[in-house]
């Protein structure tokens, strides 16, 4: 992997956010608004250190890219340390860099909130956890980080704990994430049992030792990845997670945490290289998630939920990329996505702030005049996510889609192209409906098709009494908008900084020449994307459509296909498959236990297990003689076995 040397600042990168969290937690009441400054500094310093590492790494020639810091040794096979190689460097750069911008934005966004110190303590803690995840040089450290980011996400989704929906969403996210944690735990169990070590270097050097467990290990790792990265069918928590504050959505549920699954697969590339079954599985799930997320995005009206589904869809692209072993492409898409998706979320946050917490795009309109910074920045980001040539997403999406073909997965190639068209359509739909035409918020909600309007809730303290300086929110959005344009240029050319980093990280593979060249792929993608934009334009942005906007939106709301409105019936299927049968079973056994344990599928599993527990419990009658009988019975079974053995010899 070309790791050599040490970089003592790694400790600083890793621990300064934790220090920030502790300070904010302990001295919150004294700090008041200064908590924001502490929070920003605690992530700004690591960003500078990471940037320095990036500079060193991209300028260096030869094999030495990255650094390794040893923390402590345990039994043989357990060496804990920090690792900064190109892969973790990219992630650390995004976590601290984009994270820093989002922290600055949060100072403005959370200005009126009284619990601002608690908020920044959680945010800094999240950054620390995420850095633990990506900087660890072994599976155990990765899993610790994996669990801690889930915990931080739980706290932040439920930050406004007086909203019942936020609490429910937090719990759902936590439960699904724990399922993923457990899956990874099992994968580590298996790896250690076979290889006898948990450090990346050793494990990846002994992939053949996994034998026929290889696919199982990949499967369990991917269950963890899918839970964290909201891949079908473990995606249902992500849209609900939008109950958290918008900066949280931008940082955790768009730019960083949800891409941990991509990181995991890319980190474990030697495993995926060795298992074609795992490639098929992960690539297919990624492709389906990309398409499914895009389709669901078409049917949403809530601006944050649209972005949530688009996140799910874009992560689907990344997972597809790393799944088909086009690792560089998948990672590149993570890199560009972090900028334009954070930009979209933060821009949406400005709009939501401007409209006093209205999130339904049907009740927006004409926002280009009221929020010009958001308008321009989001325009760049929408072009980037659609893959418009020259914008950041163009480079990485092209690479992912072409990578699928190049590595022999033509059906995923087709999925990727179709999804690109849908993506362009629904993102421009969002953009046109929100920013063009006239403001519709003062119309009767029913007139634009909103059947159950959510009045601006009292969950956020009233705005206006103390407004933050406007630049606090505008500047990060503008910067991210700029990066949505230029982030892709680091990848151009074989001697670009990007390629200098990654050609050594991932092995070059011998690939057959695909039927369609990269140039053709670009052309096809452009045509499909242009078609998507054109349809969105015709439906929402022609002068006629703008004039008739309320009626058209109402009609669309009423005619929306049920399959999309009900989110492909995923929650219903889970209900039918797990919750209802186990409820029936529970009634059958006449003992219903803990009716609101946890959500959905997990509840079903618990039910079934509990019934089995009841069976064991039923054996325990409390009567001495029955216990003696059980013991004698067990002894008799033993005696039979041993008598047979005695006779046999």
């Amino acid at each position, binding site marked *: 992997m070309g790791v050599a040397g040490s970089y003592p600042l790694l400790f600083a990168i890793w621990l300064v956010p934790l220090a920030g969290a502790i300070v904010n937690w302990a001295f919150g009441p004294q700090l008041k608004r200064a908590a924001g400054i502490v929070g920003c500094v605690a992530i700004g310093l690591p960003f500078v250190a990471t940037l320095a590492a990036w500079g060193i790494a991209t300028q260096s020639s030869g094999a030495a890219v990255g650094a390794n810091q040893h923390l402590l040794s345990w039994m043989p096979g357990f060496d804990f340390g920090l690792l900064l190689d190109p892969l973790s460097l990219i992630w650390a750069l995004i976590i601290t860099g984009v994270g820093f911008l989002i922290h600055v934005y949060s100072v403005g966004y959370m200005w009126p909130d009284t619990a601002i110190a608690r908020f920044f303590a959680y945010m800094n803690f999240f950054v620390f956890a995420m850095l633990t995840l990506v900087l660890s040089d072994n599976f155990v450290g990765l899993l610790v980080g994996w669990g801690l980011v889930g915990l931080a996400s739980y706290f932040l989704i439920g930050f406004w704990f007086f909203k019942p929906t936020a609490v429910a969403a937090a719990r759902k996210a936590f439960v699904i994430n724990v399922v993923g944690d457990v899956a990874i735990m099992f994968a580590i169990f298996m790896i250690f049992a076979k290889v006898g070590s948990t450090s990346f270097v050793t494990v990846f050097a002994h992939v053949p030792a996994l034998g026929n467990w290889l696919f199982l290990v990949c499967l369990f790792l991917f269950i963890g990845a899918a839970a964290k990265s909201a891949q079908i069918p473990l995606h249902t928590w992500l849209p609900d997670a939008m109950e958290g504050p918008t900066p949280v959505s931008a940082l955790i549920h768009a730019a960083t945490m949800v891409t941990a699954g991509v990181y995991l697969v890319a980190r474990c590339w030697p495993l995926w290289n060795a298992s074609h079954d795992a490639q098929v599985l992960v690539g297919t799930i990624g492709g389906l998630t990309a398409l499914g997320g895009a389709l669901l995005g078409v049917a949403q009206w809530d601006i944050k939920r649209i972005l949530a589904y688009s996140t799910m869809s874009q992560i689907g692209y990344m997972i597809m990329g790393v799944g088909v072993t086009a690792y560089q492409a998948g990672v590149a898409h993570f890199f560009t996505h972090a900028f334009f998706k954070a930009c979209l979320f933060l821009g949406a946050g400005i709009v939501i702030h401007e409209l006093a917490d209205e999130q339904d795009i049907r009740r927006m309109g004409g926002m280009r005049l009221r929020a010009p910074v958001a308008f321009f920045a989001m325009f760049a980001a929408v072009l980037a996510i659609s893959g418009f040539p020259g914008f950041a997403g163009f480079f990485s999406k092209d690479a992912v889609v072409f990578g699928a073909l190049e590595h022999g997965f033509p059906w995923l190639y087709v999925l990727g192209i179709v999804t690109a068209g849908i993506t362009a359509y629904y993102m421009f739909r969002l953009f046109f409906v929100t920013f063009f035409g006239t403001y519709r918020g003062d119309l009767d909600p029913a007139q634009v098709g909103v059947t159950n309007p959510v009045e601006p809730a009292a969950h956020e303290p009233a705005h206006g009494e103390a407004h933050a300086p406007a630049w606090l929110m505008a500047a990060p959005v503008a910067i991210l908008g700029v990066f949505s344009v230029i982030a892709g240029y680091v990848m151009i050319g074989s001697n670009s900084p990007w390629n200098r980093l990654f050609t050594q990280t991932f092995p070059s593979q011998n690939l057959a020449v695909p039927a369609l060249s990269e140039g053709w792929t670009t052309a096809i993608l452009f045509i499909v994307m242009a078609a998507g934009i054109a349809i969105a334009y015709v439906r929402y942005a022609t002068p006629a459509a703008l004039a008739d906007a309320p009626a058209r939106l109402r009609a669309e709301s009423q005619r929306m296909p049920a399959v999309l409105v009900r989110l492909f019936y995923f929650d219903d299927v889970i209900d039918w498959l797990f919750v209802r049968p186990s409820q029936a079973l529970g009634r059958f056994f006449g003992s219903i236990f803990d009716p609101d344990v946890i959500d959905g599928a997990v509840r079903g599993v618990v039910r079934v297990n509990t019934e089995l527990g009841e069976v064991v419990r039923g054996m*325990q009658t*409390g009567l*001495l003689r029955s216990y003696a009988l059980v013991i004698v019975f067990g002894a008799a079974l033993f005696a039979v076995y041993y008598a047979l053995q005695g006779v046999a010899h």
Partner: protein
Amino acid sequence: MHADLLPVALANYVALSSVIFFIGVAGVVLRRNPLIMLMSIELMWNAANLLFLAFARAWLNNAGHIFAFLVITVAAAEAAIGLAIVVIVFRSRANVDVDEIALMKG
């Protein structure tokens, strides 16, 4: 092994003590009075003692004899403690049917 030193064949000792042992086991499972259960347990232990003595003789190894004395000593302590426990249970219930003693279950 010096089985010829025994007055009757070694197998007979094994058979007898097995029978005594299983009478003891049956007593524990079937009887409802803890005192009788304790006696049945003594039966099980003494079946083992008989085996120890027979084998000690067969192997000409005194360890079996010593073991038997050890078991007798421990059994005495066991009986003392057992009776005390039965007495405190009896004091609080005035009834020692073990089928009536099932506060805790599940």
